[in-house]
């Protein structure tokens, strides 16, 4: 590979629009694991707009390490065999703005690191995708040391940490705008 000196300018994004619903979703898109299988948890939440109303036309993707913190390199996300954990899933919200995934608690990718799930949000009316993270709520010491979380005010930091449900699942809402606005990330 020759040395590249000139960077290419990235292609702009555009809104996913209203009509992705017959194209992007597919069977078991939100089931990284079969529901009810050992170790599986439900991750769910609601996407809200700036008026606090649920957004009925948003679609989320999650990408995460497995329960041991390994980054998975398995194909098969689009045609799930029911056994292979690929680490990636796609979930559309319903009319009430609620999305659901069946997945596992991500493990720490290095000892003592705060485990998180990487998230990308698309919606009609959202001009470009938004990146964010979902952290597990448990390990306070790891959360306190996390480079991203420790760079945020406590109030904003809270938007990236999921709540643990009584059934062992996780709840994490997306607020696109206004009070409790989710922290969205710029990696450039």
């Amino acid at each position, binding site marked *: 590979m020759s040395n590249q000196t000139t960077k290419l300018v990235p292609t702009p994004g555009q809104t996913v629009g209203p009509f992705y619903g017959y194209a992007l979703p597919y069977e078991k898109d939100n089931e990284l694991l079969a529901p009810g299988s050992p170790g599986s948890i439900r991750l769910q939440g609601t996407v809200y707009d700036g008026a606090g109303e649920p957004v009925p036309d948003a679609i989320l993707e999650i*990408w995460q390490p497995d329960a041991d913190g390994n980054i998975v390199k398995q194909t098969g996300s689009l045609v799930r065999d029911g056994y292979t954990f*690929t680490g990636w899933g796609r979930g559309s919200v319903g009319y009430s703005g609620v999305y659901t995934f069946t997945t596992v608690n991500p493990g720490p990718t290095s000892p003592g690191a705060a485990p998180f799930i990487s998230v990308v949000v698309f919606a009609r*009316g959202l001009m470009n995708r938004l990146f964010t993270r979902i952290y597990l709520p448990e390990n306070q010491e790891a959360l306190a040391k996390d480079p991203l979380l420790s760079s945020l005010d406590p109030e904003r930091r809270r938007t990236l940490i999921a709540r643990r449900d009584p059934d062992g699942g996780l709840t994490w809402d997306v607020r696109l705008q206004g009070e409790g606005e989710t922290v969205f990330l710029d990696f450039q």
Partner: protein
Amino acid sequence: METQQDLSAEINAIGDAYARAVKDGAPAETQPRLDYAPYRSSILRHPTKSLHHADPETIELYSPAFGHQDVHALEADLTIQHNGEPQGERIIVAGKVLDGDGRPVAGQLVEIWQANASGRYIHKRDQHPAPLDPNFTGVGRCITGPDGSYKFTTIKPGAYPWKNHVNAWRPAHIHFSMFGTDFTQRIVTQMYFPGDQLFPLDPIYQSIVDQDARDRLVATYDHELTQPEWALGYNWDIVLTGSKRTWTENEALGAAGDEE
């Protein structure tokens, strides 16, 4: 309800302000504005706080893997999904997916969806009174080759009306979804056709305020890609944001791609 004139005045005012800012030394914008009021549905759906700068870590430096197990080769031809031929102008859309350093993105998933030749989507929310085509669904997928190349056979989508304002029409476009080598390169966008008269009127296209940046979404007619007696060819390359991963030599050569 607002007219196109109202909307165009807003679009032009934002465009003029941007042109002045650039003249005064502001950097060129390369992405759409998240806060772009002429697209009315964006008003309550854009973050008001600026995006928080973060260094990508661990999982974010990798992408999910897709392969030929996930996508059948025939999914790249949108004209053969039914018993008959779809109506419309048959086209070939081909190009490459590259990262910001010009490296091909090999073995990655590309998904597209589009309206039919009449400007109608097979979607229950599409109320446009134009005919559905029983021979056209408008959904395709493929896996990029070792050189980052993709190629779809489809029909040229029609322009379609929407309810942003009175007499609002979208320029003909194909929705594209791509992955890179890092999850932070994830992109969903729209590809347009050259010379569309609706460009200046469309708040979605105009949400990218920089003309050079908008041009990056417009395919080029390519007579080399056109097939005699068969289909017109359009070329469109996609550049993802730069990869932040430290590359091994094999990966940089594309050996990590799915080359079955």
